[in-house]
């Protein structure tokens, strides 16, 4: 009886944990939006001399890992094609901006950093709108 109960519990959990492909896509978008916002704030605080260079570089590395993972999740997803394309598009912009941010920090190029911050803000805004459409 205990074994039957255990099997039932596991099936129940598996059923509850199941998300539709679109839901999974939105979660991926959430994560990407979160990291874009992070990089935007990181760039802005660097411009204000509140955080050191190495922190920005470390955060960009962490963000890139997350963008990579999100990219994989989107590519493997069964969700709607337009949604996948939209998210992928923003991911590409964010990844490009992240690469530029790294270079800009290393060159101490404040204008370039400010430009990257704006690009992250734009990505976040678009992804946020996708999120809002879901509700």
């Amino acid at each position, binding site marked *: 009886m205990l074994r039957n109960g255990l099997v039932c*519990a596991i099936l129940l*959990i598996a059923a*509850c*944990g199941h998300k539709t492909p679109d839901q999974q896509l939105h979660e991926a978008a*959430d*994560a990407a*939006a*979160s*990291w874009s*916002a*992070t990089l*935007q*704030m*990181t760039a802005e*605080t660097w411009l*204000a001399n*509140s*955080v*050191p*260079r*190495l*922190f920005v570089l*470390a*955060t960009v590395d*962490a963000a890139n890992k*997350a963008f990579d993972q999100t990219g994989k999740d989107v590519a493997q997803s069964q969700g709607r094609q337009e949604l996948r394309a939209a998210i992928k598009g923003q991911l590409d912009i964010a990844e490009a901006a992240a690469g530029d941010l790294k270079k800009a920090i290393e060159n101490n190029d404040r204008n370039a950093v400010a430009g990257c911050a704006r690009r992250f803000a734009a990505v*976040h805004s678009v992804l*946020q709108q996708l999120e809002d459409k879901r*509700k």
Partner: protein
Amino acid sequence: MKKAMTLALGILTAVGGFFDIGNIATCVQAGARFRYQLIWSMVLATIVVILLIEMSGRFACATKKALPDAIREHFGFGFWLVPFLILTVIHILVLGAEIGGICFALHLLTGYPLQVFALPVAVLLWVFLWRATFSAIENSTSVLGLITLCFVVAAIWLHPPTHEVLQGALPSMPATNPENYWFIAVSIIGAVIAPFLFYFYSSGAVEDNWDRSYIPVNRAVAVIGMGFGSVISIAAIIVAAVVLAPRGIRVDDYHQAALMLIQVFPYWGYELFAVSMAIACVGAAIEVALSMAYTFAQTFGWNWGEDLDPAEDARFSLVYTLALLGASLFMLVGVDPLKLTLLTMAISAAVLPFVAIPMLLLMNDRKLLRDAANGVFSNVATAAIVVLTIVLAVVSIPLMVVGGS
């Protein structure tokens, strides 16, 4: 006069043990993702922990024995073995998470990758435990721990909407992502009601020679100390809610948390966060390592005591040495510190019945405690706590699977 000093130090120590990596991780995530809606979880956890800490202390005052000691003695080795093994695993996981917190804080301050610090941190903690007396440990970590008040300052400065904060103190249903909401709610409780707290606290009471005359002091320490710690944790939720949530920053990584104090403290916010994190985790790491050593030594009847020289309690010292080495391995091999912390908090919540049930039974032993035994109120409260821990034990692992990030 002496009791007043003890009270002051006890409060500070309690604050230090309360606000650790588990609290930081769960509270910052709670604030960033659900704003003020999870404050009730912290309030509930605080009430429970105040009751349990008061009982642990009262027990030590009345019997001059710490909890692991009493549990082996009164319930026998057979009853204690399984909880003992499970709690040993939890100790190592929590210690790993705390060391992870210290390593990350040092990474923030120096820029070097956090793996680099794993062994040096373990060694430094070990040196401290090897050489210091119990009161030296209590005093230093608790005074330094006052720096975490910066979260309270920040929370007040940010002027959060009062009615929303108060609403958050009552349970509510989340607008989105209920699995994650409940997972974090359970993790907050697991982070606050940490088994190591009770074993450390009762053993510390024995180390400090508390007797029945300290029962009122113990009550004050439990309420004020845990209360303060809770205020700091709620402040962390509020700061994350005001600074990170509106920007949509979800805190999947400690780097994101590091930004949270900069809005209030433009010049020192980054360093303040790192130093607070480091000190909070150092204090907690020491308590966890000692808690594990106390538990082993008391279970097997070895000589124990931080005030003794290591030469007098070699096996006790060996336990915290191996614990520190083992726990440092997580960071050394590159385990993600935030993920380790959240996993540990969920598992910790799942094993709480093993902590609460023996305590309920012990506190009713009138032969042992005489007039210090639980009254009706305490028993009703403890019974409710046991029910709560059983509910948590059932839901925490499934929630981690379904709602963990």
